[in-house]
């Protein structure tokens, strides 16, 4: 049966080349856009190096400190993370590090701005950086506040030009750091890993950060299994009431929680103001789906129109199939299937185009260090979306075609 459907679909495609071209082109462009978006989301949400364990990582990157009159939302402080977030159950590794900060380096009178993160040693264990040369800094260097740094290869090239960076020193925001490692550039969307320069957090200019509850830091919690996320959230929540406030006159409590990357992005997009609630990812994904649907609707309606205008070509076939035992349901299935095949071909074209467009985006520097790829996840999204598009644009014409009266369909007509 499938081979038969395939043959017919193929012939129908060849019959009107212009129609086929227009519909494949339309489907291809639609799928292209959706696949590019899917590749970006995949880049953001899927575990990709250095964030290889993203699927079992929670992050504490946004907290709120509240009082009668005041509210402070933003990144948590080192004091809070270090004192209240350690030793959560099932957390195998925890890393505390700063949000990125721009620092300037002057090379031969030219100002070079890089993004610097100050991190602990565990950072290098949770995230899997690709070391091109040298090594990360370890526990003792962090304890001692050793003025060492890891650079990305392009930061190293900007600062040291042709010189070998490892072992060399440079000035970052008025502080001299010695390079001990060079890593491959990190794409912008790997948000906890993205930076140009990394140094031990103990190299910070002052010690103020140690006690602060809010500001400038974030934490990654590597969990042994994602099934434990809720348990960890519950423990985290139970610790919050015991936080000793540093400014009890103005603030009396802290809200927030360890979130997944998806929850993080969802709250970012929704602009959630209440940190005490877990971001509703269902809404976010639902909204994404709805946007995709709306985006597909217009080309689908176009295709429906084109298909409807060609029903007459197949009237005799419909009559014959009914006369020889096809039920209306079977015919609907056949026509929908035909359309799905057509859409999948269009989808493959779209995927091919996406491959090329993503390459252009990567090369354009529009997103720093972009490394958008068509991987198996993106391919399966593309195929699923094109199948869905096939059903969307094929269901109504199929239903109309299958309901034609066989007696009328078989009347006359030279065949």
């Amino acid at each position: 049966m499938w081979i038969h459907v395939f043959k017919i679909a193929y012939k129908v495609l060849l019959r009107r080349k212009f129609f086929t071209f227009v519909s494949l082109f339309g489907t291809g462009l639609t799928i292209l856009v959706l696949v590019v978006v899917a590749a970006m989301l995949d880049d953001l949400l899927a575990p990709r190096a250095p964030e290889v364990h993203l699927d079992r990582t929670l992050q504490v990157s946004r907290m709120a400190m509240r009082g009668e009159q005041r509210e402070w939302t933003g990144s948590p402080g080192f004091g809070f993370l270090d004192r209240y977030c350690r030793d959560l159950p099932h957390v195998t590794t925890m890393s505390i590090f700063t949000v990125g900060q721009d620092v300037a380096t002057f090379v031969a009178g030219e100002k070079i701005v890089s993004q610097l993160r100050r991190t602990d040693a565990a950072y290098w264990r949770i995230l899997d950086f690709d070391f091109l040369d040298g090594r990360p800094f370890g526990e003792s260097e962090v304890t001692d506040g050793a003025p060492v740094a890891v650079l990305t290869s392009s930061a190293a090239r900007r600062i040291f030009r042709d010189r070998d960076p490892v072992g060399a020193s440079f000035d970052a925001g008025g502080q001299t750091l010695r390079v001990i490692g060079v890593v491959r550039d990190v794409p912008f969307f790997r948000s906890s890993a993205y930076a140009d320069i990394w140094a031990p957090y103990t190299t910070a200019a002052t010690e103020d950060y140690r006690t602060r509850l809010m500001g400038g830091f974030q934490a990654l919690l590597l969990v042994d299994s994602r099934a434990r996320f809720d348990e960890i959230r519950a423990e985290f929540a139970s610790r919050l009431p015991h936080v000793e406030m540093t400014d009890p006159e103005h603030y009396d409590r802290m809200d927030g929680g360890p979130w997944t990357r998806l929850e993080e992005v969802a709250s970012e997009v929704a602009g959630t103001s209440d940190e005490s609630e877990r971001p509703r990812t269902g809404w976010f994904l639902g909204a994404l789906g709805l946007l995709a649907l709306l985006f597909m609707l217009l080309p689908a309606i176009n295709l429906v129109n084109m298909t409807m205008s060609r029903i007459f070509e197949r009237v005799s076939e419909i009559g014959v199939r009914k006369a020889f035992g096809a039920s209306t349901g079977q015919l609907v299935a056949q026509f929908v299937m035909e359309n799905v095949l057509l859409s999948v071909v269009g989808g493959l074209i779209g995927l091919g185009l996406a491959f090329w467009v993503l390459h252009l985006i990567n090369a354009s520097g529009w997103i720093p260090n972009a490394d958008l790829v068509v991987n198996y996840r993106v391919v399966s999204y593309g195929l699923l979306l094109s199948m869905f598009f096939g059903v969307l644009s094929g269901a109504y014409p199929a239903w109309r075609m299958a309901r034609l009266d066989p007696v009328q369909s078989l009347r006359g007509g030279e065949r």
Partner: protein
Amino acid sequence: MNETLVLENRSAPVRTGTAVRLTGVAKVHRTDRIETVALSEVHLEVGEGEFLSVMGPSGSGKSTLLNIVGLLDRPTEGTVEIAGQAMNGLSDRELAPLRNREIGFVFQTFHLIQDLRVRDNVEIPLLYRRLPRGERRALAEAALERVGLSARMGHFPAQLSGGQRQRVAIARAIVGRPRILLADEPTGNLDSRMGDEIIAILEELNREAGTTIVMVTHDARLAERTNRIVRLFDGRQVQ
């Protein structure tokens, strides 16, 4: 699997029961303004293994009658029985497999699917049964052999003459070994020599496989060759 067994059994000529029984069948087409009576008060019994012709002037309801017997159309009044089973009140889903197993159609204008090769056209009725591909193919080839078109299996309908196309249509109608073959002016678009060939094939099917045949024709000479002639006039049976 059961299905094929039953079919095999049926290929032997059995001339005992009634293949088709119409009782008080009427068909009225109602549109907003007018009511057209296509058939009224038709009582017809076709014996198993019978070869019957239906004659009558244009518009007398011959095609309507055939479509009702073939379960493509529903009568507005009366009952239709196929092989002793009443068809009233059956849904499209229930009728479709009955059409598939019991009925084969041959049309004046062939109605072959232009996009499919001869072999694939003939296979169509088998697609709506759960048959493995190899078996479908073998049955289609056997049916084509039966109508003498083994050599044309890979052709497209457009590459065949009218007579050959009608033979393909007959192969398609008999490939599922239906109990009843319904032919609506099968020779209407053919010259008399090709028409004779087609009738010869139908006669042979009737004689050898015991297929019940109801054929609409305008050609008295061909009608004479069948067992019985039913005449319609203005939707009524006159004989």
